[in-house]
């Protein structure tokens, strides 16, 4: 039996790095300290049905083929397309992302990550105002006020609160939960809001209004605030703003409640502006609650390799970036791509119906360990190893701290990185021959 300690969990952006995993005869037999999400993902590698063999759709049915056939077919699709969408790459390693970017560049494709339907607007907000952030340990050690805005860590990041935020004990916060106030802003009561000292129920889609009102309090312009903003009485807004102003160190964690609601990236932008004002009085930072464990890593790698963090269009050989035009959902909604390669993500399940309809129409290659909604629409399916369980690689935590994912068990499946490397070679061969 092998006991592997300090395992980094390949599920969410919290990237907990303290798991202990026991392996017997190449089977995972015990996982310690993981939450339900991480546990199911790691345990699932040996339990859930996998895509066992590469497949190609023939007469409407996926039939098993050799790996070489699948690569050849996939490369053929890529080499002969005018506008390919390469999408996903969030539940995989930075090393695989790097290869995927190279493939996109060489095939004149457009490449986007799952940030498209997650924290894409957060990235747009950084373009507008920057990112006043800190590492999670600053929150653990210093924060006497934690605000969860439009996020629900009890469900989406279950160990976040014990490791980094609500309950974490640090140097200046030895009393843990008692050392800090917790505020939650959301449109409905959640399992997170139930744990808060202060719950503010904002009208759906009105976060931008509320954030502006808080800024007006911070900047001593209270007189411009009407009796109620975003469904919240002025007194309560002043109370929330005062909490922020009087805290010694506060952190606003924000989630999809801000990025997906009505004013999209302007919510993150407004949080940033709020901190720009607030830091004159008290230390305050913001951290996005990133979903996929390495969606942050995609952004990092893409940014240093191309200059842009996602939604990069190599159609004209130069890197071009413009979410709203070059985002995965944008081009699918407009039905303007003629093929797609999807890896380590499931747009079939997570994209809006119009976008899925376009995906169903075009030749599509899927690289994934598991059968999912996207598989139902795929024309070429290539099974992959599970990063962080069957293969190693780099991932970035939600606060952009990079960690090395471990290999826990052996596998016969190829890694995403190897598959894309093979694809690049095959595409070059086809293009060179043509």
């Amino acid at each position, binding site marked *: 039996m092998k006991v592997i300690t300090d395992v980094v969990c390949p599920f969410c952006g919290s990237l907990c790095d303290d798991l202990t995993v026991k392996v017997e005869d190449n089977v995972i037999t015990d996982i310690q300290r993981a939450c339900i999400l991480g546990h199911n993902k790691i345990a699932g590698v040996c339990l859930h049905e996998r895509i066992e063999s590469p497949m190609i759709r023939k007469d409407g049915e996926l039939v098993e083929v050799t790996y070489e056939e699948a690569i050849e077919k996939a490369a053929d699709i890529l080499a002969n397309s005018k506008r390919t969408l390469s999408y996903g790459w969030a539940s995989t390693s930075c090393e695989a992302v790097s290869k995927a970017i190279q493939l996109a560049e060489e095939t004149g494709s457009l490449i986007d990550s799952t940030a498209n339907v997650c924290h894409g607007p957060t990235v747009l907000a950084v373009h507008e105002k920057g990112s006043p952030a800190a590492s999670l340990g600053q929150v653990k050690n210093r924060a006497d006020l934690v605000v969860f805005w439009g996020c629900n860590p009890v469900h989406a990041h279950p160990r976040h609160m014990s490791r980094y935020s609500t309950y974490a004990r640090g140097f200046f916060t030895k009393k843990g939960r008692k050392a800090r106030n917790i505020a939650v802003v959301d*449109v409905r009561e959640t399992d997170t809001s139930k744990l808060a000292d202060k719950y503010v129920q904002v009208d759906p889609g009105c976060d931008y209004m509320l954030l502006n009102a808080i800024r007006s309090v911070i900047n001593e312009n209270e007189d411009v605030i009407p009796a109620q903003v975003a469904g919240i009485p002025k007194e309560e807004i002043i109370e929330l703003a005062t909490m922020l102003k009087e805290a010694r160190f506060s952190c606003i964690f924000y989630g999809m409640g801000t990025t997906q609601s*009505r004013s999209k990236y302007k919510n993150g932008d407004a949080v940033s502006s709020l901190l720009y004002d607030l830091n004159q009085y008290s230390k305050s930072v913001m951290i996005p609650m990133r979903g996929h464990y390495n969606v942050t890593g995609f952004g990092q790698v893409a940014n240093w390799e191309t200059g842009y963090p996602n939604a990069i269009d190599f159609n004209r050989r130069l890197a071009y970036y413009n979410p709203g035009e070059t985002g995965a959902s944008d081009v699918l909604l407009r039905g303007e791509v003629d093929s797609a390669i999807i890896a380590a993500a499931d747009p079939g399940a997570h994209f809006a119906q119009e976008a899925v309809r376009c995906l169903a129409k075009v030749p599509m290659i899927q690289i994934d360990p598991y059968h999912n909604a996207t598989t139902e629409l795929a024309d070429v399916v290539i099974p992959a190893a599970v990063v962080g369980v069957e293969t190693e690689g780099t991932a970035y935590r939600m606060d952009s701290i990079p960690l090395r994912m471990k290999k826990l068990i052996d596998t016969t499946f190829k890694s995403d990185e190897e598959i894309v490397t093979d694809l690049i070679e095959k595409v070059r061969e086809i293009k060179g021959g043509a």
Partner: protein
Amino acid sequence: MKLEANLITGRTAYQGSYLEYKTSPRYFEECAYCELNPEDLSQLGVSEGECLKVSNEHGEVIVRAKMNSGNPRGLAFIPMGPWANAIVDPDTRGCGMPGFKGVPSQIEKSDKEPLDLKSLMRTYCQ
């Protein structure tokens, strides 16, 4: 009887735990439902486990009813996933992000059953 509701979608721990096992019946159970305030549900004459049709200009979907007293009245929640996405607003509003939250929708009782994952995906291939 139709309820005018504001639809939001989002994560749950249970939907998340079956994220890598979408072919399992548990994933279906954890995604193909709609949470409403108890008063909204009783107004519709629907009890938990019965089926709802949620529709709007983008489409319609059948899901099971679930009660959540934390939802304000008129707020409907469906976990992120293929069922929710059948009826979200696909427009990316110039910034890449479809409308996963705040979609005006109508909700009514239905005697149809929700489609399973494969059947639902098949509707896109026609």
